[in-house]
């Protein structure tokens, strides 16, 4: 069970006071959209434990993790970049997900190989990150999330630098992994298209608050609030009646 609940989580960043309330179901794929600087990444960082809430609580699978160290939370987060150590090869980067000191058994190594195969990087374990394309690097990070085997996957725009076709491909991969492992996925994206493509529900974040949450198509189609309408601008859901 890996639901994610944010209950009146307060966080002060410079002169912005944020307060987040959000419920995500176990096994759900939720997208977070909103203008830059609205606090989407901060929200993920609060769930992952990189930022500490001043008040309120973060619950994962019903357990209070508000004061838990990031490495102990049942969470893996992918960033836009710097997901990999450039001086370590691909296999070592994945292996760090099993043991933070890289003390790996033969079975561990086999798991690393299997994870790489699962993300389509079979036999590339000896490469350095600099020898990979941007998409391949994010696949390595996904492979590591597989060996870490944490039920919550937080994606902080990890595919933003990729072209549209490749982004689709990566979202397909994430969805396949989600289905295979019953992951709870939160995706921060600047592309309403991505949300529409992959996320059952979408939350709109504005100035440090979750303003609206709903089924993605309804939220984007209806675009009720003025803030959301301003944010979406000319965006139109294809196939709209």
């Amino acid at each position, binding site marked *: 069970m890996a639901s994610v609940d944010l209950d009146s989580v307060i966080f002060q960043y410079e002169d912005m006071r944020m307060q987040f309330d959000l419920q995500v179901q176990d096994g759900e794929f939720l997208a977070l959209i909103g203008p830059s600087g609205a606090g989407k990444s901060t929200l993920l960082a609060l769930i992952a434990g990189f930022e500490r809430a001043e008040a309120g609580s973060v619950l994962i699978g019903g357990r209070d993790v508000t004061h838990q160290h*990031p490495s102990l939370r049942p*969470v893996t*987060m992918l960033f836009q970049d*710097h997901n990999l*150590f450039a001086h370590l090869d691909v296999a070592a980067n994945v292996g*760090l997900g099993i043991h*933070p*000191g890289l003390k790996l058994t033969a079975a561990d190594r086999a798991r690393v190989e299997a994870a790489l195969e699962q993300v389509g990087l079979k036999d590339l374990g000896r490469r350095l990150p600099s020898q990979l394309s941007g998409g391949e690097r994010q696949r390595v990070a996904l492979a590591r999330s597989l060996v*870490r085997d944490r039920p919550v996957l937080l994606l902080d725009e990890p595919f933003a630098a990729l072209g549209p076709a490749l982004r689709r491909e990566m979202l397909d991969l994430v969805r396949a992994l989600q289905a295979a492992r019953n992951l709870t996925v939160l995706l921060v994206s600047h592309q309403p298209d991505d949300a529409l493509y992959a996320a059952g529900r979408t939350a709109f974040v504005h100035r440090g608050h979750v303003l609206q949450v709903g089924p993605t198509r309804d939220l984007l189609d209806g675009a009720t609030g003025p803030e959301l309408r301003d944010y979406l601008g000319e965006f139109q859901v294809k196939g709209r009646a």
Partner: protein
Amino acid sequence: MIHRLVPGALTFLLLGLVIGGAFVGLLSAAGSVDVGTFLLSPYTRVVVVFTVWQALLSTVLSVGPAILIARALARRPAFPGRTLLLRLFSLPLVLPTLVGILGVVAVYGQSGWFNRLMVGLGAEPQQFLYGLPGILIAHVFFNLPLATRLLLPVWGAIPGEIWRLATQLGMNSPQVFRLIEWPLLRQVLPGAAGIVFMLCFISFAIVLTLGGGPANSTIEVALYQAMRFEFDVGKAVQLALLQVAICGLLVAAGQRLVRDVPLTPTVQRPQDRPDVAAWGGRIVDAAVLLIAAAYVLLPLAAVLRSGLAGPVGAVLADETLWLAVGRSLVVAVVAGSLATAAGWGLLLTSRELRLRRYRPQSATALETLASLVLVVPPLVIGTGLFVLLSPVADVFAIGIALVVVVNAVMGLPYVIRILGPPVMRAGEQHDRLCASLGIAGWNRLRLVEWPLLRRHVATSLALTAAFAVGDLGIIALFGTQDTATLPLLLYQRMAAYQLDAAAVTGLVLATLCFGLFGVIEWGVGGRGQR
């Protein structure tokens, strides 16, 4: 994570013990001296005026030509021997001061190369070295290359688009200088000039050996004479406090002068300047670079030549030399390691404060503290520690330990400067990832920090060790026959006019210094691998 604050606290403690201890010593003795009379005395005025005057002249003579040299280097990015020239220019930074002085004497002294050339041309040999000219020649030898290296990045930071624009507008060389280079230079010059001025202001070995007598003393040299020959601790304390006050003012003024250069790095590939092909410029640049190279190269060549021509066998057979070599090696390795470890620790803590606790002011304050030694030069620390410790310990017996500690503290600003940016970058890029994967403590050091920082750690260690190997400062104050390091032995031989033996000793010191530097860079930095 309290333990991330511990390394910085330890460094703080080291600084507190050394510099704080020195201050306590100075202030405890200051009560018994008449500061007013001292400050107004003609002696004090002469020393202060000379200290400022020689530093000012040295700065102008170093930084002025450095602009020409850096510009010539920037304008000719591909001339043959450019890399070699830059290497040559990095040598004086590491070269022990006394060895540089030996070289300067061998070139400009009474029977030096310069005078021999003059005699060959039919002129009378001139004795001009000892006094202000000698001080300036030596200061420029050490600081001209430094100033060049400080200024050169200005040109590297000019985006290629600017050169395209200048070419399109048809700018000539003076226009390029006035409209493009000067505005940028003007922002960097105060900082570079400030560093050179500071180094010349607290200059010790050069003024001591080439000053030619008490009339030409900097405050540091006057301090040394008061302590070592006049046994006048009261006078030394007054000079030390005066030195701290002036240095404090200078550093504070310097902080206000230094500004960031607003430049956006470019992704464009390099573009030729519009004034690169003109023949006049080519000739000027070639002359400037040739003269600069000769100025730096000649004393170095003279050290090598007179060292090899000296009584090599006799000097090398002397046990005193090897004892001094041994002491110097120990001092260098321990002081270098201490400086690097203390600096690295301080940076880990300041990074924690900056990135995790959002306390950038505290982080900056901590880093600034490491440069405090600029305000409190080595002989001032020495005087303070002498006053503090002499009632309770035999300071001459623990002289070597004091040399190690003071050299470590002196190396700290360099460590911070070399390690600071990469340590911060490693934190910014990998802090979250390490936290989420639980890579901490020893694992983080071994798997993340060390591979990323190894080269920079090696450079810090090599540089601070090389400085300590060649340092004649505090050892001159506390050294005895039984604790003499190699620089002190060299100084004793120079002072006793055993110039042949000194030449060989100097070559041994230079070899030791560069050898140690190279071994650390290769061994610790892993240059030999991959």
